[in-house]
Each structure stands twice: as C-alpha cells, then as structure tokens.
C-alpha cells in the first residue's frame, strides 16, 4: 500500500517537474531546436563518485602537504567542470523533426523515426534518444541530418504517440549528463491484429446483398483482357510474359476480379463476437480481399466505405478499423 502511494507520488512529482521545469505539454511544431534554455546539465552517478574520489584525493594532498597533489586534484576538477560544457555543446544547436512512421499491427513493434539535424561542422558522438521506456544510441556525423529509428512496442490498436522524449549525452567523460526533453509530433497508426486463421471471405452470403454487386457467375480465372498497369495493381496480375517480350507493363483483367464486389460488414459477423474480435476478423478479410485483387466495401457502425480496390483503398479501410470507436475516429476518416 505504502509502495503504491509512493509510486503515485513519484509519478505526480515527475509530471509536475515535466510541466514546470521542462515545459512539457502538447506536441511541439517541428523543427524542435535545442537552444541553451532547454538543455539541462547535472552530474551523473559516475560524476558523483568521481567527485567523492577527488575529495579523498584532496584530503590526502592536505594531509601529506602535497602541493602537486592539490594541483592534480584541481586540474581534474577543472576538467570535469569543463566536461559539463562539452556535454552541453554536444546537444546545443541540434534540431529535431518527426519522420515517417509506417503503420503496424497491434502486438508488433512500431518504429518511429526522428530526423535529427546537426548543422555544425563537427561530429556529435554518444547521443541517446529515449521515449516510451525505449532508447537508441547513435552519433551524428558533421553537418548532416540523420534519421534515428526508435522501436516501441505497440500493444493496442489506435494512435500511438511518441510523446515525451529525451535526447541525452554523457560524452565526453561520462561524469555529466546533459539532456533535453521535448514532445515531437510523431505518431504511429496501430492497426487491429488480423485474425490468425480467418474463415474464407464472405463471397456468397453477405456479398450479394451489397448494393451494386454484380454476379457474373464466371470463374475467377476468366481472362477478360489487358489494360495499362497502375501502381496499385497486384503484382500477380501483371502480364509478365508481355513484359518479358519487351512490351509495356500491362495488367491482366479477370472477369471475376473485376466484377465481384464484397461487402465486409460489421453487422454480419456472428453475434457472439466482441468489438475487438470483429475488427480483427474484418482486418484479416481486408488483407485477404486485397491479396486476391477483389473489390470490397467496408461497413462499420456509422461509417461506410464504398467498394473499391488498391493500396489507397486498403489503407483507408485499415485506418477506419484501427480508429473505430476511438475519440478521433472520424478525424481519421477525414484525413
């Protein structure tokens, strides 16, 4: 009980420190430039041990009247003090902006990327970027922008924001820790976990009730003709033989693939399913339909995405599934 209270207290304290000292709040506009006001410097544990050792050495120098002992202790103390400014200088002037973060499935690892720019003509060694309890170590070459990946577990679907991040360095002596706290506008879309072994796509039962669905009764493999390749086309439908003969890149069209339309409908799933299980199955179906090159529509409570095919359509559907029921679901649909 007491431990719970202290943990809560520590968390609250940390929160207040974040707000009042580090001015951590909402995500900051990019680029975040590390000026002198937002770099903090304190001795590390090793630095405190070093200071104690210097104190012992100073006592020895006093005790044995060693003039050069004083000189040695003072030189080391001076070097440690100047290492404080070296550490500060190692962070000073860097600027950070969020980079791309591809969506992942819940349970996977989201890889955020922050672009850290080092405008100075010198290398910045021994940096450490920490966020969400993870960290990555790196160094920045001179006068260059470097993409720093930071991998965080993504346990739940929705938006995963990187949030409070710290960039720190213990260079050059490891005695001083210089750090800066910031909130980059970096977030990752976490998709629902696709169901591991989903039932076949609902071609017959649910599909034919969808408006605009056309039943041709022809098989999937009925070749219907060639058309110009579009980047969203599945590679398995590319007319490789034509390409191999030196012709243009064409896509084979099939009667079924073109004509069949699926409706992936939330309401047609078995009634015993809870929301997450429904989302999981719909996700698996979206992936399967796309893989087979089918046209499909998605119907969720309150949202309906008309039938289409291709990468953009799939991403739109997956985004809708990821954000379903969350506070900013509609914002996700509009985006």
């Amino acid at each position: 009980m007491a431990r719970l209270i202290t943990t809560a207290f520590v968390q609250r304290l940390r929160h207040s420190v974040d707000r009042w000292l580090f001015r951590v709040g909402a995500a900051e506009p990019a680029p975040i430039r590390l000026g002198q006001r937002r770099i903090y410097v304190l001795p590390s544990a090793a630095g405190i041990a070093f200071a104690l050792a210097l104190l012992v050495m100073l006592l020895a120098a006093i005790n044995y009247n060693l003039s050069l002992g004083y000189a040695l202790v003072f030189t080391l103390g001076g070097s440690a003090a100047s290492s404080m400014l070296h550490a500060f200088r190692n962070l000073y002037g860097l600027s950070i902006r969020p980079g791309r973060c591809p969506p992942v499935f819940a349970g996977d690892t989201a890889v955020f990327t922050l672009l850290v720019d080092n405008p100075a003509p010198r290398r910045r060694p021994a940096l450490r970027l920490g966020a969400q309890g993870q960290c990555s170590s790196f160094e920045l070459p001179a006068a260059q922008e470097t993409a720093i990946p930071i991998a965080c577990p993504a346990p739940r679907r929705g938006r995963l924001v990187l949030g409070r991040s710290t960039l720190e360095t213990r260079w050059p002596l490891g005695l001083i820790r210089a750090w800066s706290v910031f909130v980059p506008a970096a977030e990752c879309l976490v998709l629902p976990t696709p169901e591991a072994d989903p039932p076949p796509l609902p071609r017959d039962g649910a599909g034919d009730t969808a408006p605009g669905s056309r039943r041709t009764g022809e098989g999937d493999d009925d070749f219907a003709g060639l058309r110009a390749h579009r980047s969203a086309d599945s590679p398995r439908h590319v007319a490789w033989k034509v390409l191999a003969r030196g012709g243009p890149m064409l896509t084979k069209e099939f009667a079924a693939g073109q004509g069949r339309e699926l409706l992936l409908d939330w309401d047609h799933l078995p009634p015993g399913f809870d929301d997450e299980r429904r989302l999981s199955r719909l996700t698996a179906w979206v992936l399967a339909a796309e893989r087979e090159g089918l046209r499909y529509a998605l119907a969720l409570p309150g949202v309906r995405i008309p039938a289409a095919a291709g990468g953009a359509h799939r991403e739109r559907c997956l985004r809708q599934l990821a954000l379903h029921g969350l506070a900013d679901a509609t914002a996700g649909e509009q985006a």
Partner: protein
Amino acid sequence: MSTARSSRRLGLFRHGGALPRERVTPLAPTLRRNQGAWLLGAAAMAIAPHSVWLPAWITALGLALLAWRALLLWRGSRPPPGVLLFALALAVAAGVRLEFGHFFGREPGVAVLVLLLGLKLLETRAARDIRAAVLLCLFLQLALFLEDQSLPVAALVLGGTLLALGALVALADPDGSQREHLRTAAALLAQGIPFMLVLFVLFPRIQGPLWGLPADAFSARTGLSETMRPGSISVLGQSEAIALRAAFSGPPPPPAQRYWRGPVLSRFDGREWRAEAVVESASPAYPLQGERIDYLLTIEPHQRRWLLALEHPGSAQPAIRYTSDLRALAAEPLRARARFALGAYPQTQAGVEESPAVLAAATALPADSNPRSRELAAELATGARDHAEILERVLARLRGLRLAYTLRPPLLGRHTADEFLFDTRRGFCEHFASAFAVLMRAAGVPTRIVTGYQGGELNPIDGHLVVRQSDAHAWAEVWLQGRGWLRVDPTALAAPERIDGGLAAALAGAGELPFMLRTDMVWLRDLRHRWEAVANLWNQQVLGYNPERQRELLARIGLGADRLARTLGVLAGAAVLLLAALYGWSLRGARTRDALAREWERFCARMAACGLPRPPWQGPLDYAEALAAHFPAHARELREICVLYASLRYGPHAPEEDLRTLENRIASLRLK
C-alpha cells in the same frame, strides 16, 4: 507470430531501411580494443613509476596482470573466471602482508592499489568497472607525489592524467577515432589547467597532517643520523641528493666557514658515537657577537627537527628553538621542504660557561678500548702546560702520521681509533674526527664530535649555495678554558682541499666520485647547474607554496584581512568567469553550417517576423511566389532573392561574389 508473417507477406508495411544494429546501452559490457588501449596505457603509466620505490615483485606483478589483460584483449577472449580472480586477490593480499608485515601505512597502501588495479582490469565487465579502474589510476598518480614532486614526475603525472581522461572519453564514445579521443582529452586537460591555477593560488591552504599518519608516512632517506660509526658518513659521500640550499643576502662566506651544524655526538662506546640529551630554550645559550651573515635556508625534508644552520645561529624567526649543544631546531620535524630566515654569527664564542656535567661527558672514554691511542695520548699530555698545548701536540702528531683521505676506507675492527691511526691510516672524515676525539679525551681534554655538512657549491645561474649529501662531514669541537667550544677539523690535516674545494677537489683523479660530481666535464656541470636552478625555482615557488606563503601572497594582492571570506569570494568569482568563458566557447560554432544557409535562415526569420513564415516543406521558388503574393509592392526583390538563393544552393557553381550579392540584397530589403 502470424501478424509478423502477414506483414512480411504484404511487403508494404515494412519501414524503409533496415534498423541499425542496436546497442542496448552505449557502454558496451566488453572492452573494445581502442578503449582497452587507453585504459591499459593509463594503468601502465600509473604503475610503472612506482617500481622505483616499491618492492620489485609488486610492480612486476602489477604490470604482468596488465600484460595478461592486454593479451586477452588482443585475442578477444573472455576474462578469467571470478573464482580464479578471487584466489589471486587472496594470494596477493597474503603477499603484501608477508612483505610489509601489515596493511596500514603508506607503502603497503600503494602496493595494494597497484595490485588492485591489475586485478580490477582483469574483471572489467561493466562501464562501472572501467571507471573504477580509472579512479585507481588517478590515486596511483597522486601516490607518486608522496615520493617525489620534482618537475619530471609532474610531467609524468600530467601524461598519465591525459591517458586516464582519454580512457574515460573512449569509454563514452567507443565509435570515435583514437585521434578524436586524444583531441578531446587534451582539450579537457587544457581547459582544466586555468581552474587549477586559480584554485592552486586561492584555495585556502591547511597545514597537514589532519590526523595521525602511519608510522612509515615519511620513510627514511639518506641523510645524517644521531649516531656515527666508521663508514656512516662515507656512505653519504656517494649521494648527489641535495640536502639544503642557502640564498645569502650578502656575499656568501668563504668555504672554510661553511660548516652546517647538525647532530652533536658526545657519548662514545668505543665504536659508535651517540648524541646526549640536551636542553632546549627559546633563545641561544650564547651572546651573539661580531659580524652577522643573513641567509635564507631551504632544507629538504629529513624527518628530524635539526636545522643545519651555519655556526653560530641566531634568528628573529620565533619558531626556532636552540639547544644546549649549540644547535638550532625547528618546532616540528621537517616533513616537507621548509624555508627559514636565519642569521649566523661566526665570531661568537659559545659555551664559555659550560656545565661540569657536559664537560665530564665530553671526556669519558670506555676503559677497555683503543689502548694504543691511550698510550699515545698519555705520552703527548705529559709536560703540557694546558689544554691548548695538548691540542697543538695532538694536531702535530696527526699531521706526522701521514694519514690518507679516501671515500673507500678499509673496514675497522674493535679498536677503531687504534686501527685507523696505526694500521690502515686511510679514512674518511668520521675516522679522522673520531680518532682525534679519542686522543683528546684520553689526554683529558673535553672533546665531542659534530656532524653536519661542510662546503657547498654556488650555482652560477641563480646564485644559491647548494649543499648535497656528499658534503656530509664530521668534525670535532674542543672545549678550552675561557674560549668555550672551538671547532677543530682533523680532516683538514690530511686533505685541506676538502675544506676549500669540497669532496671533488679532495678526491680528484681518484675515480671514486659519483659521475655527476666529477669536475672534468664542464658542459655536464653547466647543464646540472641550469637544471638545478630550475628545480630550485620549482621547489620554492610551486612546492613551497604553503599556508604561510599563501597568506603573504594574499596580503600583497590586497586580500589580507578577513582572509577566508574574501578569498572564497574571489575564488568563486574567478571560477564563474572561467566557466562563462567556456560557455561562450561552447555556444560558438554550433550553427555554422555554411554562410549560405545562415543567410537564408536569417531571411526566412525576417519574413516570419513580417507575418509570413516559410512552411518547412516549401522550397525557395514556391516561397518566392507566396511572398510576392503577400507583399506585392516588393514582389520583384523578393523573387530575386529567392531565385538567387535557389541558384546558389542548387546551381552548378556558386562563386563567392554571388553570396555577397545575396547578403547585400537581403540587407537592403526594406519591407516597411
């Protein structure tokens, strides 16, 4: 698992590049070669110089452990198991116990540090171990100063400190090059030195020791002792170590007057001379008479209280005590090099009214020793009118014996005076003084031995008189009624050059002298004079900077009264100034990407202040259009600036003049 598979199958959600190899901590648990090179270098530099003072096996074992570590590092093999290291540590502890008999004290302490460093390096697993090893290196550097604080040792420690800092830098930045590590470590060391200078001068000095020191804190070195037997002073003749320095305010006294008085020995057991108990007082026991010679005496630490002053001492310095046997003493044993302002009164008659007990002790002889000398003394004493005449006769007889002066006298048996005078006839000053005293005592004249130094060499570079251990000397004092104690130097009978020209003159050509004392190499002598002048400056100004000197200095620069508070204020102010200077340095050069980028940033910042910031994704040409739309009155100038920037940034070549044109255009732009 399945999700991973599905995303792999899709191939679309994969992020762009492969993840760089992750290091969970930047402090790799295993030591890399470049880190190891720094660390082992620092450790070797910390251990090796101790081989001069420590028992050979300890430094050899320490270095062997380092070599073992180096081998492991080179081969990339794993460190030895903990059990082996523990056993090794126990064995080492037992070895140190056997060698010194105890663990407490300076030498065993340093020995333990040396071996601990070797063992610690063998078990460096985490960054913490490496830091601990670096701290051990620094402790060992400090321990070097316990033995020697000369300039070369200071340079050695400076080098060792550089390596230790380099080891810490390499630890923090394992991917950097050795050159970068060296540059960073050297910069840190160089930036530490101004702090050191300020703190060295201003940090309030406290006279140690703060607590009781272990018994061997100040180990015995070559020097005089309170006993004398045949051979004890000729040992010192081999040593070139400096015993004391004197800076005379006037011309230095002639060599024949340079007798630096040390222990007075009047108890004789037939072979060995010892000091009698003496009475101390705050003022000299004799009236100060005649000419006065002022000088500043700097004595190397010899762990005893005697001051080795010129005869006869008198001083205004309150801390000096005087003994009944005409010596000057310091209040405390001389544990550090110390400086005394002294006066000498060579014409003073001392001990005219000597106590009968002292005189009785000065005529005592053990009954069963030196029968032949007694016989000779009895023969010389018969018919003499007074003690002065006996003295004349003894000196004349000694002169007639044709005794030879040598640094390597033959060994003597039980009757030292007999054997020297009648058999071997070769001896060093202690033989002469001892035989003379035995003869005089046998004749009933109060006589005692005085040890100390005689002579000294003027350094032409700084004008100081330098007295070495090889100038150690023993002479005699005879008490005559009405005249007090008279100095008699029997060595002068056989080797008068010893008194006027020092040991080198007396033994010229004999090939017995230490290398550096030889007179035939003029350039070497000159070099030595220069070096010793520098060393003296170092001793006086740097090593001799003690609480007293600090008080003087602070008073001179106007920090005299209310010393502590004001000194600490000045100290803090100086430290803040230094840090501010470093801060200015650290701000410089962080944003100097290139002149063109700076100009463009400045331009964009100005436009942002005017209400139209450039969104990060907008290129210069698009921004030009946006600006032109926002400020139609200046559309032409704004477009020109942006186009010029774009052509400079992305065009094929960018001459210097164009950059200047851009600068001028931006500077001359007036939007309001």
